[in-house]
């Protein structure tokens, strides 16, 4: 009996040490996506960034230390319309020549219990930076973790759509950004 109780304790210890020893930081870009949804004339459209890179360091046991940086190649945008793809890299929209990338850099991660977290960070698009807060879920199976979340930005906060496009009657101000990031775990260095 004594032996069994100790074994249970030992297992618990092992489990704890395993959890703290796992850090998710190998981003699987091929399996990940950064997509967005918006409305024009109330017609819902979906788009995505075909090219982006992400650096993530996340240890479920040390949530406060989590770090994320996602960089989107603006010119790789797919707006869901061929007409739109050509126009949208232009000066009035993203001005991709002057601002080739949009970045998200995390400033903090808070556990909300279970697999739910709240990420905060700075989103920079077209040279304009805004603080954002996004709910995130993290699902891990063995050494593979998936971050998923979405948040809404207002395009005019970033001057996305200038001139005639500031009209919000055609293209709505709200853009929902959705991310799905697959990260594999590596044993963290002690």
């Amino acid at each position, binding site marked *: 009996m004594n032996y069994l109780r100790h074994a249970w304790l030992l297992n618990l210890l092992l489990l704890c040490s395993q959890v703290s020893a796992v850090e998710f930081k190998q981003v699987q870009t091929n399996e990940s996506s950064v997509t967005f949804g918006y409305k*024009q*004339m*109330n*017609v*819902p*459209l*979906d788009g995505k960034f075909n090219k982006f890179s992400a650096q993530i360091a996340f240890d479920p046991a040390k949530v406060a230390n989590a770090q994320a940086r996602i960089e989107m190649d603006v010119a790789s945008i797919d707006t*869901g*319309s*061929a*007409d*739109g793809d*050509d*126009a949208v890299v232009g000066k009035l929209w993203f001005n991709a020549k002057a601002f080739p990338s949009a970045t998200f850099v995390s400033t903090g991660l808070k556990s909300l219990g279970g697999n739910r977290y709240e990420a905060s960070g700075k989103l920079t698009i077209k040279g304009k930076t805004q603080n954002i807060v996004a709910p995130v879920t993290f699902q891990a199976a063995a050494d593979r973790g998936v971050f998923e979340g979405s948040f809404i930005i207002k395009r005019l906060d970033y001057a996305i759509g200038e001139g*005639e*496009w500031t*009209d919000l*009657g*055609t*293209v709505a101000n709200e853009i929902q950004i959705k991310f799905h990031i697959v990260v594999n775990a590596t044993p963290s260095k002690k």
Partner: protein
Amino acid sequence: MSTTTERYNNTAIALHWLIALLIFAAFPLGLYMSDLKLSPTKLQLFSYHKWIGISVLILVVVRVIWRATHRPPALPNSISKLQQIASHVVHGFLYVLLFAVPVSGWLMSSAKGFQTVLFGVLPLPDLVGKDKELGHLLEGVHQSLNYILLLLVVLHVAALIKHRFIDKDDILTRMLPEGKHK
């Protein structure tokens, strides 16, 4: 010329002219908007065009139901059998295109990934999934059907002119509102 031509009923007349009016708006609008450079105006015009098209489709369905339940007036015997057949054929094709043109537009929108949201409030289901090649194909189909419709409308109006000015009969008054004809 003493024949008193039986008229279509008022509902049929209203539907005919309402649909005609909408098509006369949607057709040039479609031609104009396609070549526009992307702008808020272009997006608005596309939506208006789609709303008009779906309105035509709804009215055509109502019209076909109305016609099926209300016998249209028979053509007078003064018109030759051959001409009567020609008239029925052209009218038959017109009905087919009144239906096929908006449906092809709806299909094309779906394939191109732009859902139709009627009057900006009522989202209609996408008839096919997003598919670039299919979208391109359906664009061609929509255009071709429109030119066939144009041709039929030209025939329709040519027949009207022939009856009015050559045959000098009052057949066209069958489709005019009451009191508007002698």
